[in-house]
């Protein structure tokens, strides 16, 4: 029974998120709103129901398997990929490197400042 309750909580949040996203025509995907709704719910409740943890962590453990069906869909875009292969590779390589570089530099600086301030207070 516990798996069913856990799944119901997840589907219920997704359902609410989907309804809100469509009703207000928000650009945010329904499941993301569902995640936000669940997070707020958990913060109010103050703990995670065991049924939800079993179901949710089971799903997250195999998350990688779940994007296989969509990934196989690349088969439909071979033409587009061949045409823009250079652009795709250059963009992914440069953008990912820049993102890691910028994020780590900013975090390093902000965290150091935060730590120094903390030490002064102490």
């Amino acid at each position: 029974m516990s798996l069913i309750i856990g799944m119901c909580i997840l589907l219920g949040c997704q359902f609410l998120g989907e309804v809100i996203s469509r009703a207000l025509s928000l650009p945010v995907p329904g499941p993301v709103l569902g995640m936000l709704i669940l997070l707020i719910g958990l913060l109010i409740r103050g703990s995670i129901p065991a049924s939800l943890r079993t179901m949710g962590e089971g799903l997250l453990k195999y998350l990688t398997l779940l994007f296989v069906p969509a990934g196989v869909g690349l088969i439909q875009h071979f033409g587009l990929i061949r045409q823009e292969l250079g652009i795709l590779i250059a963009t992914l390589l440069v953008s990912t490197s820049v993102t890691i570089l910028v994020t780590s530099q900013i975090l390093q600086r902000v965290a150091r400042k935060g730590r120094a301030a903390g030490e002064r207070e102490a």
Partner: protein
Amino acid sequence: MNDLRLEQIWVYLSASPLLHLFATLLAFIVATVINRWAGGTPLLHPVIVTIALLIGFLLLTGTDYPTYFQGAQFLHFLLGPATVALAIPLYDHRERVRRMLWPILIGTISGVATAVVSAVGIAMALGANTETILSLAPKSVTSPIAMGIAEKLGGIPSLTAGLVLITGVVGCIVGPWIFRMTRITDPTVQGYSMGLAAHGFGTAYCFASIGAVAGAFSGLAMGLSGLITAFLLPPLVHLFGL
């Protein structure tokens, strides 16, 4: 006579969801074994190998994607509830977030903005077409969220799924090298940057190669940046006039 029987069985199987659901799970098991043999390298990530095996299978048997998807849709559907379930690790890390609220908020927003602006900017400068750009924009975010965003923006969700996977592989290869070059040794900073730029791949890499603290921060970054990207990306892309 025998050939005819076999052909009849194949005709039945290739039209029912059973075959392709089974093939997907089987390919995943084979890919996981292959990855273990290869020492867990991100270049042969189980998901990439699974997809390659299945694409090969479809091409060999002359099966089209909609037929395959009839079987695979049962797995695909679970992406929705799995995205909702990302709230669980976020909730587990709530104390850490509260303690480091400002660094995390500043780091996440600037990281997400960098990921989106650099991807869209470079692709535009190189003359990519609009659909490709919109499919590239959410590339750093974990797949279920990225695909949802691409769909809402008018990109191609399945192209996005592939680009997200490749981004993950690229992140695991360049990340450690960047940290060495810029002398970043703090595991929390390394983990957070990897999770933000390379989602689940970065998180798996952190747990395996840097440590539990880096892994936890990476998972946190994956959830938070997914959430923030979903809200930040539509207006950012709008800035580029798309």
